[in-house]
């Protein structure tokens, strides 16, 4: 089983990478895109998606994998 974790900068946080990518998209003629946020994606093999394990992984996301001051995260199991 895999856990897929997406970490993105919070709305209020400046995202210079996102801005640079948006500028480049416009420059290349890909119109219509209005906001780009560049984040991180982690994929890991996990033993289960039990409520206990989900809770453990959530804790790891809060404590270590993301910085709650500047980032949001989402976890999906597959």
């Amino acid at each position, binding site marked *: 089983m895999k856990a897929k974790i997406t970490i993105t900068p919070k709305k*209020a946080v*400046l995202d*210079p*990478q996102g801005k640079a990518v948006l500028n480049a998209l416009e420059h290349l003629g890909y119109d219509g895109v209005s906001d780009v946020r560049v984040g991180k994606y982690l994929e890991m093999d996990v033993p289960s998606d039990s409520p206990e394990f989900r809770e453990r992984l959530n804790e790891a996301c809060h404590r270590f*994998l993301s*910085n709650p*001051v500047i980032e949001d995260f989402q976890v999906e199991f597959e």
Partner: protein
Amino acid sequence: MRFSVLQFPGGNSDQDCVHAVRALGHEAKYVWHKESAITDSDAVLVPGGFSYGDYLRAGAIARFSPIMQALVDYAKSGGLVLGICNGFQILCEAGLLPGALILNRELHFRCEHVFLSVANRETAFTRASSESGIMRVPIAHGEGCYFADEPTLAKMTSGGQILWQYCDQTGALSEGANPNGSVQNIAGVCNEQGNVAGLMPHPERACESVIGSSEGKEIFESMIQTLSEKSQN
């Protein structure tokens, strides 16, 4: 006074810190990150570098080093702690300082001298600042854009926790003098208690005029003054 300088794998300013302290006539020793205690120390410096390759986020892995629990205890018992550059990032990640450091606004690594304005001169880290309140010190970072949300910033402002801000040579906090997009031009802050501080610039690389500036000394002299007073009481 006795300074401990933490050493992490990937650090690169530990020797500069030790040199600066010794050049000021005080003692400095290295403390390896796998140690679990901070002993015989009047103050701790968390130096700059790229601890653990800055993987995941700058400082994110270093903050879980064994020495960090000892540092948290040391800080909670009132010990003086200064984090410089990566050390500042580590202290923010460890929750010892408010806010976080993100990628520079222009995405470039900036390595140059900048001017800092001392925003609060009444602290253990700034009390020996010069009359002008302006210091010229170098920066060398890619992730130095300081961020804290509005409520945190308001609290920090009223508590005098903003210590240094990027300015031009006249002391004006202009946008052009802000090398990385930091909110309110913030270069360095302290905790509510005033015993833990961090800054992105490198005062330890500006302690001798032969290397371009000696104004960084003011921060170490402030700490030494504070410690001398403490030891007299």
